[in-house]
């Protein structure tokens, strides 16, 4: 083995988009290969879990871990890679904030199984069969990992050194982060590696400080191509979202969804969004503001916590969130 650094990449509950984004750095992947021996990357290089188990603690210099933690197998891998890695990066929205898999926290295992294995209209299951962690088949026993009630982020499972936001992170930002790591120019431990500005700062649409009387769902309006989407009544999350993508979604006429997570200093994304939305409403009457938000944003969980539910103050539901509403101007933590 050479004296190059050792790099590991892993995926847990995720979609694979982070892997595609890593491959999107194109020929720069060769520069990564110059600087590191890639000792573990199941999707692309090898899958020697047992070899990782045999490594000394801190034997891996850098581990980029994407995906949330939903099963016992994923938790095991998170703990193993934490133990073996000097620097562990929560890579992408799932590891950072829970992302779409974290929306599973509106329900629990029982509700998810009940829908998936019994109630969906194409499922035919008269025996009431469900996946089991151990199944006796004629030839022996088959095992599945435990499916947990709650989706956790990586840092709710093990200590994390850095975060790389985005669903997925743009290849340019991945390269920026790798460059920072390669040159030792890292921010303080525990930081998000990324911009300190918002998507609005990157957006070319013009703001006119215009106030609105109602919010529009995206299917209710054909927006002007030049003007700020929020000022046209569309719930655009750019104002609370960390920059880094180059405002890609507003460029094609679609609102920012918040996939890069909260900007620095924003404690709760939903609370920040509510404050921002209240500021563009043309009213000083709290009841009227509340009514406008209730009508225009019938699903605050999906609108404000689509990427960050697992990591938010809400974290998960005691009861399903169906029909929940949020008080304008108050923190969403109460919902």
């Amino acid at each position, binding site marked *: 083995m050479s004296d190059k650094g050792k790099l590991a990449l892993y995926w847990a509950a995720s979609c694979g988009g982070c892997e595609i984004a890593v491959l999107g750095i194109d020929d720069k992947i060769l520069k990564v290969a110059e600087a590191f021996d890639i000792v573990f990357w199941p999707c692309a290089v090898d899958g020697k879990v047992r070899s990782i188990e045999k490594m000394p603690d801190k034997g891996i210099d850098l581990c980029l871990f994407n995906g949330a933690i939903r099963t016992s197998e994923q938790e095991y891998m998170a703990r193993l890679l934490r133990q073996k890695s000097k620097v562990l990066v929560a890579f992408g929205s799932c590891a950072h904030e829970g*992302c779409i898999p974290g929306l599973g926290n509106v329900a629990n295992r029982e509700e998810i199984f009940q829908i998936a294995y019994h109630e969906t209209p194409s499922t035919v299951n008269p025996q009431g069969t469900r996946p089991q962690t151990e199944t006796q088949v004629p030839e022996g026993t088959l095992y599945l990992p435990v499916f947990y009630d709650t989706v956790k982020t990586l840092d709710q499972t093990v200590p994390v050194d850095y975060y790389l936001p985005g669903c997925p992170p743009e290849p340019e930002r991945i390269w920026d982060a790798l460059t920072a790591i390669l040159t030792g120019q890292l921010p303080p431990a525990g930081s998000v590696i990324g911009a300190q500005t918002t998507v609005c700062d990157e957006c070319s649409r013009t703001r006119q400080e215009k106030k609105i009387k109602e919010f529009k769902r995206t299917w209710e309006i054909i927006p002007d191509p030049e003007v700020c989407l929020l000022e046209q009544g569309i719930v655009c999350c750019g104002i609370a979202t960390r920059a880094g993508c180059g405002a890609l979604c507003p460029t094609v006429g679609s609102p920012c969804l918040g996939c890069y997570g909260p900007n620095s200093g924003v404690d709760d994304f939903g609370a920040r969004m509510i404050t921002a939305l209240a500021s563009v409403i043309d009213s000083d009457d709290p009841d009227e503001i509340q009514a406008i938000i209730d009508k225009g944003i019938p699903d605050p969980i999906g609108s404000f916590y689509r990427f960050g539910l697992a990591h938010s103050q809400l974290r998960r539901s005691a009861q399903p969130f169906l029909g929940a509403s949020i008080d304008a101007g108050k923190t969403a933590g109460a919902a």
Partner: protein
Amino acid sequence: MQRISIDPITRLEGHGKIDIFLDEQGEVANAYLQVPELRGFERFCVGRQAEDMPNITDRICGVCPEAHHMASTKALDALFHVDPPPTAKKLRELFYSIFFATDHTTHFYALAGPDFVVGPEAPALERNILGIIKKVGMDIAGKVLKMRRDGHHLIKMIGGRPVHPNWGLPGGVSRGITEAQRQEIEKLGREAIEFARFSLKLFDDIVLGNKAYLDLITGGIYTHATYNMGTVDADNRVTFYDGMIRVVGPDGKEHAKYHPKDYAEYVAERVEPWSYLKFPYLKKVGWKGFVDGVDSGVYKATPLSRLNAADGMATALAQEEYERMYSTLGGKPVHHTLATHWARLVELLYATERWVELATDPEITGPDYRILPSATPDEGVGCVEAPRGTLTHHYWSDERGILTRVNLIVGTTNNNAAINMSVKKAAQGLIHKGTVIKEGLLNTIEMAYRAYDPCMACATHTLPGQMPLEVTLRAPDGEPIDSFQQNLD
């Protein structure tokens, strides 16, 4: 009973795991492909705003987010009872054709290619994309990289983002294209057609020109006579974006042809306790276990299935290749799993031809790429052909467009039973009493699985190209007897 565990193989959703059991005589008794993950979209999408679904369900898969984005957008058309204007439909199909061509390129060259171009029995360290470059030269590798780069560039240009586009809306798309963009799309499309023709020529020279490979394709261990599913146009030709679902039997005769909204009358999903992924089958035929034949409801939904289920291709060059494939392989339907790779290249050519047809359509730059829905939303089904199989999204909502119920049958899931059968058959054909488990043998078992291009197996294989495997032979008490590692050191 002895057990061979192949863990991890590349994942479908999460990792896949293959367990092969040997009986007392050392023959293969059974094989299981387990999927150890579930995320619960059908539950947690309830309560969401319907219009958010194209940007939630695309996170089912980061390899083919365009397929989910498009099936979801079409489900919204149906849910809101809105018929998008012609320019919108054409833009969506153009976007989708570019995606299809890009995805099929990745699979053929990065994943499947090494087995054929370099050879299934070649040393493992050469059987990868680097091995392809060595064998065919940097020039060809450059063409492959250009095709992928162009595809991702156009997907981002049209749909907003290279992974997880944000573009589809009920009644159309969020933005059209300019004439300058159209010209670039057309130019790159014409180059893509040449790339697709080149790819078929390469397949001809290297695979069809080699009797050993042809024998491998037509050999019994990779053959399953099941039903086949695909989407067809009004003339029963292959289409990806929109059409009727057609299912043909193992004999090639039409079993069913239905509108996607009626899918639940034709397709049912079975639950097994040993996998988190369900097993779809044809409802009217019924579940008879993991067996093929006309009495078993097991079906396949792959590039080869789509060609089997159709009467031909809608573009000229692809039609020629379609005819040539079937005449070479002895007529329709073809049940050789490995011929899926050939079918994928025929589809690649069709996708690029369709790309240029749409890029040169006078309406494609039109200003009417959206209309606003006015009806009350209630229920809708959206369906496209994903590269890995027919993809169905079905939503129900209240009058505000808040979802009350969701059902999804995703591409790879269609093939869950067939993949299990293919792995078992390949193992039975290759492992016998006294067989020495060696790397080449594992790879040939793996090829049975790889032909389906199970989701997550495509673009992610671009570095060395072959799956890492660790096989352990265990005695009935679980004690390891022997083990073998492939590409692990």
